[in-house]
């Protein structure tokens, strides 16, 4: 049986994904430093409202409130024993919202990074990363998600571990990385590197792409990098609604709904078929994105200049794929360990 996401992609040119989870929950009273995942159990009504917001704004896909729902992240809140339960509940609430909507919606089970650094730089082994993703995947599956959705990953090995976790749970999956450091992930992965990483995976995702990061211009530069590789997979673009600013005791994102509408249209022109927001993206932004996608014909692939003129400048001159990245400094060169 084909999964629901693949089915939907077969009938539609593009799909609208959802927006921010954290931003919305903070607005509902989540305290800085507290775990959003505990709310699945404590405030199911608020989690349902979070999903409903995206659904009512026109999202075809929404992500469960389980970004930090792996053992390593829940441990910060002494809840590492509750991985299965918290993920299952989040998925059940999502399933319920989707089934009630009367529309064909995809519930995607969010899996964020473990937050640990993998060997040899850090202490997390590949095997335990797989175990954590697998444990989370089983909870999400039990709660009824249609697809697993790894996001904000920065290390290639962690991405591979998420793939392996999905394979063990026998679930279709998508996976995005965050290109937040001079156009690359913080571990130095470029868009082209990611495309190659996907090619080599045994258990391939339905879609891959970029989420979060610094601004919508950077995100689209990354998407252009993916489409230049002509991937078989669907490309996903989930960018932030601008840049966070601290105003009067809370965090405000400076991207307007109009700007996110332009971003959505450009993302599609860049080659993305699944388009959504990330931090700071409210239902208002999503509505504007949906309307823009519906009312604008598909255009030619934009150039970097057109992107920066419309959406703002890039955070770095190079993203490491154009041969113009700054070079490491000269060392005496008499020894090097590779």
């Amino acid at each position: 049986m084909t999964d629901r996401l693949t089915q939907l992609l077969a009938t539609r040119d593009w799909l609208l994904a959802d927006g921010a989870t954290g931003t919305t929950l903070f607005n509902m009273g989540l305290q800085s430093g507290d775990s959003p995942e505990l709310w699945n159990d404590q405030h199911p009504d608020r989690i349902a409202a979070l999903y409903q917001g995206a659904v009512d704004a026109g999202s075809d896909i929404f992500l469960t409130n389980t970004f930090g729902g792996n053992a390593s992240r829940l441990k910060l809140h002494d809840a590492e024993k509750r991985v299965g339960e918290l993920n299952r509940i989040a998925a059940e609430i999502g399933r319920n919202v989707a089934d009630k909507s009367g529309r064909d919606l995809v519930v995607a089970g969010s899996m964020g990074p473990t937050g640990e650094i993998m060997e040899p730089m850090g202490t997390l082994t590949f095997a335990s990363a797989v175990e954590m993703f697998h444990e989370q995947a089983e909870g999400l599956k039990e709660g009824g998600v249609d697809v697993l959705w790894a996001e904000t990953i920065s290390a290639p090995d962690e991405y591979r571990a998420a793939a392996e976790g999905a394979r063990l749970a026998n679930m279709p999956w998508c996976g995005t990385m965050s290109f937040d450091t001079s156009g690359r992930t913080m571990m130095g992965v470029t868009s082209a590197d990611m495309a190659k990483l996907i090619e080599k995976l045994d258990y391939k995702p339905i879609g891959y792409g970029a989420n979060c990061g610094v601004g919508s211009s950077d995100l689209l530069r990354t998407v252009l990098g993916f489409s230049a590789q002509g991937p078989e997979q669907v490309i996903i673009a989930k960018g932030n609604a601008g840049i966070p600013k601290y105003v009067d005791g809370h965090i405000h994102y400076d991207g307007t709904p109009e700007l996110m509408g332009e971003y959505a249209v450009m993302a599609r022109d860049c080659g993305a078929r699944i388009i959504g927001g990330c931090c700071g993206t409210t239902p208002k932004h999503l509505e504007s994105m949906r309307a823009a996608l519906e009312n604008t014909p598909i255009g030619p692939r934009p150039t970097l200049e057109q992107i920066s003129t419309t959406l703002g400048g890039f955070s770095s001159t190079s993203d490491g794929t154009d041969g113009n990245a700054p070079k490491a400094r000269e060392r005496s060169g008499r020894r090097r360990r590779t």
Partner: protein
Amino acid sequence: MADEEDIILSELEDEELTLQMHDDLYDGLKEEIEEAVNILLARGWTPYDVLTKALVAGMTIVGIDFRDGILFVPEVLLAANAMKGGMGILKPLLAETGAAPVGKMVIGTVKGDIHDIGKNLVAMMMEGAGFEVTDLGINNSVEKYLDALENEKADILGMSALLTTTMPYMKVVIDTLTEKNIRNDFIVLVGGAPLNEEFSKAIGADAYCRDAAVAVETAKEFMARKHNQAAPQ
């Protein structure tokens, strides 16, 4: 694996050796850094000079190239690890040379936040500059900060946050200090990439520290002020 002529660290003049150490930090070569630290000490360098001229200067270069998108996190972690190797040798010596500690600091990353690379650098530099540092690690609640401040009889509270979602927690900590009427017992310094001067003022901290070097300078300045105030008029 470049096996062009191998370098014998002990044969390099002081200046060339420090430059080689900057390179070796850049390449994250821990054993070489440890060896070079021992060589400089044997040549009569003070531990403080080894720390500042070789290690800190080298880490500054790493920091600049990280900022400029030349190095990424794996390289920074390797460099920090090499620096830590050198610090392991220097730390006991620094403790011997300096008489009484310049001041006592409790430092930690705030609740919900697991970033600690920058905080660890600050802790290392503070120790290097003669402060006694209690490092609470990551994910610290108000209670943990307060307990440590009391148990250690600290002068300074240092808080680190790298996320816009966790930085407001610093205000929670400072407000609690104020509520308990102990805010003025401590110098509160804050740092982390998304912070700035304005934020630090808004939450009622004493100062924002852009980097580890600024943290050391600021801490020294506040300690000096504190002593002046305590001295009889």
